[in-house]
């Protein structure tokens, strides 16, 4: 894995990506002041590869590579960030927008058929329904 630092460019495509995410999420991502409250309080941050506030920054800079990060799939929409952001940004909506951009390309994040039967049998309906809603297109 090439972990050397890569310089990034600011492009029109990047600006369009930002606009797309802002439109789907309905949030003004440029308002984010990068205070880090969302990351600090996120119960799932230790499973992520980049922090929620980092996602906000990368989206603002038009870095489409965030679509390949694990972070928005780990997000469980628990809304802890939503109720704490000092600028009243809804970070959970940004995560949803990023998931949707991928899912709308008909790329599912979960395949129910591959789950072990004993597990599926144990689960309450709500678990399967919500997982499919969130993680499939």
């Amino acid at each position, binding site marked *: 894995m090439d972990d050397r630092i890569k310089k990034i460019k600011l492009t029109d495509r990047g600006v369009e990506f930002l606009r797309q995410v802002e439109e789907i999420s309905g949030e003004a991502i440029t308002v984010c*002041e*990068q*205070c*880090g*409250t*969302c*990351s*600090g*309080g*996120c119960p799932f*941050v*230790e499973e992520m590869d*980049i*922090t929620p*506030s*980092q996602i906000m920054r990368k989206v603002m800079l038009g870095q489409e590579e965030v679509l390949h990060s694990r972070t928005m799939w780990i997000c469980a929409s628990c809304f*802890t960030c939503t*109720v*704490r*952001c*000092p*600028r*009243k940004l809804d970070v959970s909506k940004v995560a949803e927008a990023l998931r949707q951009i991928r899912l709308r390309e008909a790329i599912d994040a979960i395949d129910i058929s591959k789950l072990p039967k004993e597990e599926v049998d144990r689960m309450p309906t709500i678990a399967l329904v919500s997982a499919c809603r969130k993680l499939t297109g």
Partner: protein
Amino acid sequence: MKIGVYLCQCGGNISNTVDLEAIQKHIEGGDEIAVVRQESHLCSGAGQKAIIEDIGAFGLDRVVIASCSPQFHEKTFRGALSRAGLNPYMLEIANFREHCSWAHKDNPEAATIKATDLLDASVGKVRHNVPLEEKMMKLGDDVLVIGGGIAGIQTALDLADSGKNVTLVEKQPTIGGNMTILTKTFPTEDCASCILSPKMAEVQGHKRINLIVDGEIESIKGHRLHFEAKIKHKPRYISPEINMDECIGCAQCEEACPVSAPNHWEQGVVKRKAIFIPAPHAIPYKYIIDKEICLHDSEGCTACFDVCPQKAMVFDQEPEYSNVAVDAVVVATGYDIFDAREKPVFGYGEFENVVNGLEMERIVDHINEKNPPRDVGKRVAFIQCVGSRDEQVGREYCSRVCCMYSTKLASLLKQARPETDIYIFYTDLRAFGKGFEEYYKRAQKMGIKFIRGKPAEFKEDPKTKMVTVLVEDTLSRDIIEAEFDLVVLAAGLTPSKSTEKIAEQLKLAVSDDGFLKEAHPKYRPVDTLVEGVFLAGTVQGPKDIPDTVAQGSAAAGRVIATLAKGEFAVDPMLAFVHDDKCTACGECYEVCPVNAIAENSDGKAEIKETLCVGCGACLGACSEEAIDLNGFTNIQLYSAVEAALAGKKPGEKRALVFGDSNCTYRVADAAGVRKMKYANDNRVLMVPSSCRVTPNLVAFAFAKGADIVLIGDCPEKGNKFEWAHDFAKKYIEQAKQILADKGIETDRIIFDDFTASNLPKFVNTLNSISEQMKKLPNIDPGKRAELNPLEK
């Protein structure tokens, strides 16, 4: 009656579009018209000279000028009248330029017709003008300063040194305010009390300062440089005759007292007894009993009294009241620190080792004592932006001083306890002032670590009581989960609790962030929109000590400049009462929003001129039309309306617009200046405010030919008369009822607000009114006649 009419050509600006010849012919020979003249530039020396000479030659007793908008030369022409020996208020101006020749440049015929109507209206009005006297109010040297913190102290000293008589009212038992709670100050690390005490002593000793502690403003009335305040003197429960020369300072009372409570001047870090002296440098240096914890009333405890050699305690002392009349007021009621219990995630008030900034000031102040009341442990965290820059608690603003005060506390702590590991968690480090950046670097050099991240939540270890902080370092993208012995919340400044009450009492505007609003944020930072009331210090917004002291002196300077005139002219366009019409029904006493109407010794209504602001709201409440408004009397406006509509020909439609002088009339002017095109079937008459427009006046307008009546005002927010919209809407409802009773469409009466920042709204409104009128049926002349209130 001899009326002089002057038509200004305005160098062609008017005469190129409006046919002044025709208008001169129209007006010449009218009743009591003594002379009609056209001039190239009436505002010039020559123009004014012509008017002055005519006044002498023809014995004119009133003048009508058709020219540009009154906002430009009303003062000029009033001055000319004065120089001619005529009362300056025997003048009316018809707006031929902005409302006619410029607004309807493309339609000279219509412009001329409109101008004719406006001139007729002015002539109709001037017939009923009466001489008005500008009363001169003498200005004294008395000033009330509310709040005895550093801002109030600085203001009081500057004012007293310049010869003013200052009454300084402070609600706490000592002056000094929040600054007495601080340890050292940034960036010099000077001791706060050392700077403050000499000034406090000076205040106490100054012969021109009447210092009232334990004082609250019970009520305050007035405006326009004359205020009357009732001050409540809260009891200290110590005999007022005992001064500290007699009190031998034996402190036996304190020792004997059985109950303790947290000391406000120590932010609870240290306790004090029920009988106590607030702070070591309190001024006045005198005991006070805290009745809330004192056991005298509930258990008959007299422990302090028993041991006092002077028997100084008076347990049943009652509050006293005094009155003071002043010429100016300075509000310096300061700040309270944000109550961090509003952020439960930080555990303030619950976790043992979480404190706020002011508490830390006391902790650091005591840290070098042999047994400090509270120590700090090995690892300390400061958290910035608590209760500021946080929309979740409704405080979007930056509190300006917290970055620096945390840096200071960290620096002092590090010097006292070098082995402490100190972290400051910030979102943006604001070190903007003189010496601030250098101070910040020195702090960093000491090893204080500044981490860019705002913690999301804290946990308290139930056994060790250490606080675990969870925060992202946004610069390294590490998520830190670390334990601290002490966490300091750099809580922001919020307006003090007493500020809301004072703002209500003085009718002061409040900014969106809750602090008191200055008259203009850029060039009038210590004035308010209430004449004679000034602001100083953190009551206007968060700021540090140098800025507070600067504002204190600034407010004093503004007071001195304002009072230097010695006297000021009261606007004569205030309300008055026709005694013969007044039935003493008392309806108006309740109506006046500034309580300017009261019953006089004859039982009739009387206007208190020092309080009246000339809005005209009372007129609509008087069923007898006994209350009237100088400059805009009932008869003046009826005459103007009738004349403005008299030129309407059959088949034509007219909209009568009552435009308030602050906004709507000026917006109409601005539209004319920009030559914006709009319908010419409207006539704009000036009123001081929309609330002057009585239901009768509206009905009269319809009676005399109006098809639509538009009433315009400034928007509600920031309106000079904050009650105007409420009154206007009420009177309009009544007017609509009058129309409805006659089966006339009530949407012919329109109320809207206009501002100079939205000229298209004005233009579009008049255009759509013109369209609306074309669609509306004609009002039957018989019905119109029935609407006339003067025929009832």
